[in-house]
């Protein structure tokens, strides 16, 4: 299995619900708690596995806001696992989920340096590296109804901009969507083969601009004649 996510950038409205649902689920999940630093202080900060950035693409009149959620891509060639000296970072054979074993992590930050997506976060309170678990403590939970065995971010997304599934199965929803809409990989040139895919915004309807045309010669002459006659 090759579990991963698809994010549809056309549907995402940048509401941050996925980031909040992620934090809420995971703070009491297997890699919880996700520490908050100075939550009521002047400069609150804390651990998040999911971050949404907002971009303006192109320029007027073709410009468009693109909301851009990013979490762990669960790379096939995960550099974070390669560089980890302790063996705390590992990629699961059975489903490709990249996880950190907090019992082994020494908090050297090396994996965070190796990750181009900024998917890793050091929990400064606990001193260990944390990351998106693809809600491994949820997707296999047989106590949940089958429709809810999905990562928290996917469950909560109000615009269903996020899909979860097995990219190894050609008949899975994610495989079909990804091939239909040419799912894109971030930083593919680095060769880490990220599993998560992004669906590009479809082409926007072009807004016609009505430009004032330069008057032609005949009109200019007419105008001039009119002016002269009026005098």
């Amino acid at each position: 299995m090759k579990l991963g996510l698809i994010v549809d950038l056309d549907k995402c409205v940048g509401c941050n619900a996925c980031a909040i649902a992620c934090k809420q689920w995971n703070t009491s999940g297997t890699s919880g708690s996700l520490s908050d630093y100075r939550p009521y202080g002047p400069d609150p900060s804390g651990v998040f596995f999911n971050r949404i950035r907002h971009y303006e693409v192109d320029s007027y009149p073709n410009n468009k806001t693109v909301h851009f959620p990013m979490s762990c891509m669960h790379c096939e060639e995960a550099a974070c696992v390669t560089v980890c000296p302790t063996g705390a970072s590992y990629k699961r054979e059975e489903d490709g989920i990249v996880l950190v074993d907090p019992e082994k992590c020494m908090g050297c930050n090396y994996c965070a340096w190796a990750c181009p997506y900024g998917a890793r976060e050091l929990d400064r309170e606990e001193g260990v590296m944390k990351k998106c678990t693809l809600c491994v403590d949820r997707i296999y939970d047989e106590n949940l109804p089958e429709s809810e065995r999905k990562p928290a971010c996917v469950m909560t997304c109000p615009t269903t901009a996020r899909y979860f599934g097995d990219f190894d199965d050609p008949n899975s929803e994610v495989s079909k969507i990804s091939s239909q809409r040419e799912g894109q990989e971030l930083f593919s040139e680095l060769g880490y083969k990220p599993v998560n895919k992004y669906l590009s915004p479809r082409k926007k309807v072009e807004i016609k601009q009505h430009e004032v045309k330069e008057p032609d010669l005949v009109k200019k002459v007419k105008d001039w004649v009119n002016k002269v006659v009026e005098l």
Partner: protein
Amino acid sequence: MHPAFSVIFFTVTSGAGYALMGLLALLNFLYLGMLIDKSTFFIISSISVILFTIGLVSSTFHLANPKNAWRAFMRFRTSWLAREGLLAIIFYPILFLYLYFVFIDYQIENFMFMQMYSCFILFLSLLIIYCTGMIYACLKTIPQWNTFWTPVNYITIGLFLGSLLLFLLLILNNYNVEQYKLHLIVIIITALTTKLIYYFNIRSPKHNIGQATNAAIKLKNTSVRLLDVGHTGGTFLTDEFGFKVKEKKLLRIKLFSIFCGFFAPLILICIYCYLYEDVLLCFFAFILAFLGMIAERWLFFAQAKHVVNLYHGSQNV
């Protein structure tokens, strides 16, 4: 990248320490174990051991969870950090056995064996410095580090500090250093040249925002402007990778590291060698070189830009 002082100190001192030991073993090899008496050998090798041990200890200060530091050797098959750690640890018994053999005059009877052992110590100490360099050079996410010149710089600068220190220690122990003068000058010039090549090599950015964001949204050759980072305060990412210094300050420190770290020691050593023999000159040369190399290592971090900055509004890294 955020320059952590513990890591800067670690790479400079352990590099100097390993190079010093390697060069001492080289001298032992070249002069058939006859050149250096045991007490000097002991002094120089203890200084080397102290240097790289301080370095290794200081490297653990940047760990958030140092109680697991002993696990750092587990993944030596893939991780340069683990390789460096593993070699650094196995270097101790190998070195102590070597020193023991030197002290019991083992080389008189087993000459060939000790010659090979000396070469092995030199090889191993350079290999450890190479591994330290590769910790940084293997990261494709940091274009300024992901170059062949990174490990080369680590080795040449290690040899530069090590040879300067060895030169000073030999003088202090009343050895004739006449024949090493030229070697030392060549090593200093080599270190300077490779560093300048490195600076030349990293002068232009390797990635730009077009590659990072456009790759995802498949809008090639269009402008992408960050509107909002999505967080109201600092995060782990901005703390770790958002380190920004003014170009002016970078230039000042670069000039300091080049002039104080390379040119000043070079001039002082030249004065010592050809004009006026005073051991203080060599002492100051080493101190200046050490400070200069701390500045050089600080720059190595401060100039490095992680690709994640592209998502945070940098137009290139």
